[in-house]
């Protein structure tokens, strides 16, 4: 009896195997896992294992010799007298800020996405590109803009405009949790806008119609039907925002320092800067652990994927809600977001590039020389405005080339990850891939880059020494930015039922044809998001680039940082504006060419 069962089971396995042979999902899944294990797990282990090994130079503190196992770093972070300063308080702060930012980003992004994809709000075509811009500006520009407005004498530099007018800005408004939350929320809501918007765009409006018919008010429809169906994209964008807060350093540092408000990220970065690999590793491990926890809960939440399938076989509809007399007020909301998220920071930044002394708005203080002068005195290595000479254009081309390639890879691999994760529904491969493809997001870029340097500086097996080559930069940028694409891919694929693919199979299309002709085009929006997000993020990337470029490859970010060193903050900021402009143009053109603007409908 038992043996017979076993025989049946083997037979059944054989059958399943022969099915799997024709469904490259499994194969691709394994392949992706292998590649990612090498590119993600290996560096990650290299970084994290420092947490329990004595680092060179820490012999006196630990009383052990380098490389030995030690609990010292754990003790220092979790139990020592400074642990509350370096860890516990930042942990609490991080949670507060992360939750706040996530909620704010969901609110802003969700509202914007709804208005742009489902209603006839005034200017939706235009807004659907414009509202992505906040993410194109480095996050610290928001902090700068904030300080320009609210700064009081708690911190260095000049006071903000309000104080200058005699309005006393309290510390809680000027620094700490509140402004950090606002600034980061404004910065990261485009994640939600893009992911959630893509998902909304594919939602069959009849699903909402049927609820309204049953008497549900808009709010109920939103809460009971729309949002639950959007869960994959919501949880993906939540993950992206949340994960980013765990690692974002710039804004919290600028806005938190004056009131001693630390996040895990600031703790981490001070550990990195102070060359404490052990401490770095411990805090990074905590961040990764929190991230993994969130990813796991996301996987649990979305366990039954078929529940979220909104692109099926029966005809869908995409009707826009007529806002009627609310068209203009709604547009005002959208433009309000635009004003806060784009206009203010950009203007602040732009003003800083045309004023000799920042913050003084007198005629003689304005100048265009940082842009166009062909002879600037006193700057080593950069004696002219940034639009003169070839430096800017070379750097822009390098950035475009390297980051562009990396983000294309990201987009494709991300969608593949999404495909495999969703199609091998619930299998171990799926959940592993889901997690591993998100991990790079949680590790600070500099730590990752350092590990990569060790990994790829010499030939390993068939892989030649890549260190110093552009290839390595592309690979690292692709790996570290893959999470954007894979999340976008996963949430999009969750929505797509099997029917369209089955129909193609029946029509005689093999796997590649199906993916190329059916899946990719239907997921065009997700694919483009999976390219755009890494691109925008990658073109702003500095720490990885600095660590992995050898010499000669000037990128926009390195150019900007060099200019700061030459004391031309104006020009550095001008380069930042150029970065944003390049991002914007690339995004705009991509959306134009692929017709994936959030404002476009289901077909075509």
């Amino acid at each position, binding site marked *: 009896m038992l043996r017979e069962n076993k025989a049946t089971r083997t037979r059944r396995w054989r059958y399943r195997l022969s099915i799997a042979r024709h469904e490259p999902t499994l194969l691709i899944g394994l392949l992706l896992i292998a590649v990612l294990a090498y590119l993600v797990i290996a560096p990650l282990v290299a970084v994290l294992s420092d947490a329990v090994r004595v680092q060179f130079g820490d012999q006196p503190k630990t009383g052990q010799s380098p490389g030995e196992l030690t609990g010292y770093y754990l003790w220092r972070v979790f139990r020592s007298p400074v642990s509350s300063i370096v860890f516990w308080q930042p942990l609490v702060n991080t949670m507060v800020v992360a939750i706040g930012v996530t909620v704010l980003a969901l609110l802003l992004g969700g509202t914007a996405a709804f208005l742009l994809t489902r209603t006839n709000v005034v200017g939706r075509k235009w807004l659907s590109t414009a509202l992505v811009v906040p993410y194109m500006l480095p996050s610290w520009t928001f902090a700068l803009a904030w300080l320009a407005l609210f700064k009081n004498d708690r911190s260095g530099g000049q006071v903000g405009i309000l104080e200058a007018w005699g309005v006393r800005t309290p510390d809680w408004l000027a620094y700490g949790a509140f402004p950090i939350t606002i600034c980061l929320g404004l910065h990261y809501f485009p994640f939600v806008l893009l992911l959630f918007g893509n998902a909304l765009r594919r939602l069959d409006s009849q699903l909402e119609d049927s609820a309204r018919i049953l008497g549900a008010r808009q709010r109920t429809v939103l809460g009971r039907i729309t949002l639950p*169906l959007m869960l994959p994209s919501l949880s993906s964008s939540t993950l992206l925002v949340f994960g980013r807060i765990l690692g974002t350093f710039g804004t919290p540092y600028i806005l938190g320092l004056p009131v001693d408000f630390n996040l895990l990220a600031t703790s981490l970065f001070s550990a990195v800067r102070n060359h404490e690999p052990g401490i770095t590793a411990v805090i990074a491990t905590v961040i990764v652990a929190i991230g993994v926890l969130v990813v796991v809960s996301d996987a649990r939440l979305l366990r039954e994927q078929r529940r979220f399938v909104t692109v099926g076989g029966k005809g869908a509809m995409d*009707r826009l809600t007529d806002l009627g007399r609310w068209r203009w007020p709604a547009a005002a909301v959208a433009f309000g977001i635009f004003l806060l998220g784009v206009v203010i920071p950009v203007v602040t930044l732009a003003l800083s590039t045309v004023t000799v002394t920042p913050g003084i708005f007198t005629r003689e203080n304005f100048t265009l020389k940082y842009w166009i002068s062909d002879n600037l005195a006193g700057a080593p290595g950069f004696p002219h405005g940034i639009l003169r000479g070839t430096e800017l254009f070379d750097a822009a081309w390098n950035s475009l080339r390297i980051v562009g390639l990396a983000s294309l890879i990201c987009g494709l691999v991300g969608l593949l990850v999404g495909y495999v994760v969703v199609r091998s529904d619930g299998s171990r491969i799926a959940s592993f891939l889901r997690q591993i493809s998100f991990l790079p997001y949680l590790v600070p870029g500099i730590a990752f880059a350092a590990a990569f340097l060790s990994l790829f500086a010499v030939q390993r097996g068939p892989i030649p020494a890549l260190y110093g080559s552009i290839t390595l930069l592309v690979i690292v940028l692709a790996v570290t930015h893959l999470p954007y694409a894979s999340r976008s891919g996963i949430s999009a694929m969750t929505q797509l039922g099997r029917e369209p693919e089955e129909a193609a199979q029946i029509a005689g299309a093999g796997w590649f044809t199906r993916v190329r002709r059916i899946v990719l085009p239907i997921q065009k929006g997700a694919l483009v998001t999976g390219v755009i997000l890494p691109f925008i993020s990658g073109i702003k990337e500095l720490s990885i680039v600095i660590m992995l470029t050898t010499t000669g490859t000037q990128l926009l970010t390195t150019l900007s940082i060099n200019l700061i060193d030459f004391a031309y903050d104006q020009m550095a900021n001008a380069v930042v504006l150029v970065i944003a402009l390049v991002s914007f143009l690339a995004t705009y053109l991509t959306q134009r060419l692929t017709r994936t603007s959030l404002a476009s409908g289901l077909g075509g």
Partner: protein
Amino acid sequence: MPDITLTAVSKAYSAGGPLAVDNLDLTIPDGSFTCLLGPSGCGKTTTLRMIAGLEHPTQGSIRVGDRQLDSVERGIFVPPEKRGMGLVFQNYALWPHLSVRRNVEFGLTVRKTPSAERKRLVDAALTMMQILHVADRYPSQLSGGQQQRVSLARMLAVNPAVLLLDEPLSNLDATLRLEMRAELKRVHDETGHTIVFVTHDQLEAMTMATHVAVMRDGVLQQLAPPLDVYHRPANTFVAAFLGSPAMNLFECGPEAGVLGRQAWKYLSGGGLTGGDVHAAGVHTVGVRPEALRIVDAQESTEADWAFDATVKAVLPTGAAWTISLMVDDTELYLVTTKAIAAVSGDTVRCAAAASALHLFDSSGARNDLADVRPELAGTAHA
């Protein structure tokens, strides 16, 4: 709830595009069981969705009694959730993230029905639709017919005053369909609610509806009780559209084909001249396949129109036989439940009662000859 009135309603999906619904004037009587019939793409779904408030007319107004629901002219729009109507979507529109039970329950939850009552109503609806056993599954785990029944149950559970059903039984088997029809009929009888439904099953329309509205290319062709529509089609389109096989239609006149000349002669006999018939505008004659019968020579009476035809094919359809006949180059169909001995190639004599002849003028509109020949006028059925 009083009558639902659509006044001069037009709908174009894209500005300047073709009209999905064209200047529709339609009154759905209170408490009626009105059936929308018409070829695929004629605007039935669009009409239902406009009544429900899901689609906005480009022109015209919709009201229930005195309550304006839509009025393009006066800028009135009542949102769907405030109309108190139920709609069963042609493609179900079930919520994939809710189990069958929760799908059905939704409307009641929205109405804040107490939970015990809710459970009772949901169970009743599920039982009525014979899907109680799949209550805990998700829509994606159901067969097509089961999904369709969930969407019916979802609407029936909340018992709205106006039920709009878009091909609600199309994916059900005959037995089930019969049972569901009975249930709908029962609901209608018990509640007296207004039901508007779209079906392609003419038997369904005939047996269930109190009113039938036939549409074509967005334009209303006829609104009348079902037997009237069947027996007194307002025009050739309606005549040809209803019935399976469709009504035999042929041109009739002194210059028409053999059959048409024959009919012309018959019509102009008995006191009428060809000129009279001509003056009355008769252009097309129609006769339903089941109104034709095969007769022995002596059997046909004077009140009958009779002619000879060649049997082309005999198709058994289970309960009956469909016989296709040729008269010269005109093909006719005849349906009978009586077994006949004729085989392909035989010549048989056919007859139809004069009252079974439908007359249409050259624009296709019905022409009852009432003023010239009263005995041919009136209803076509016996």
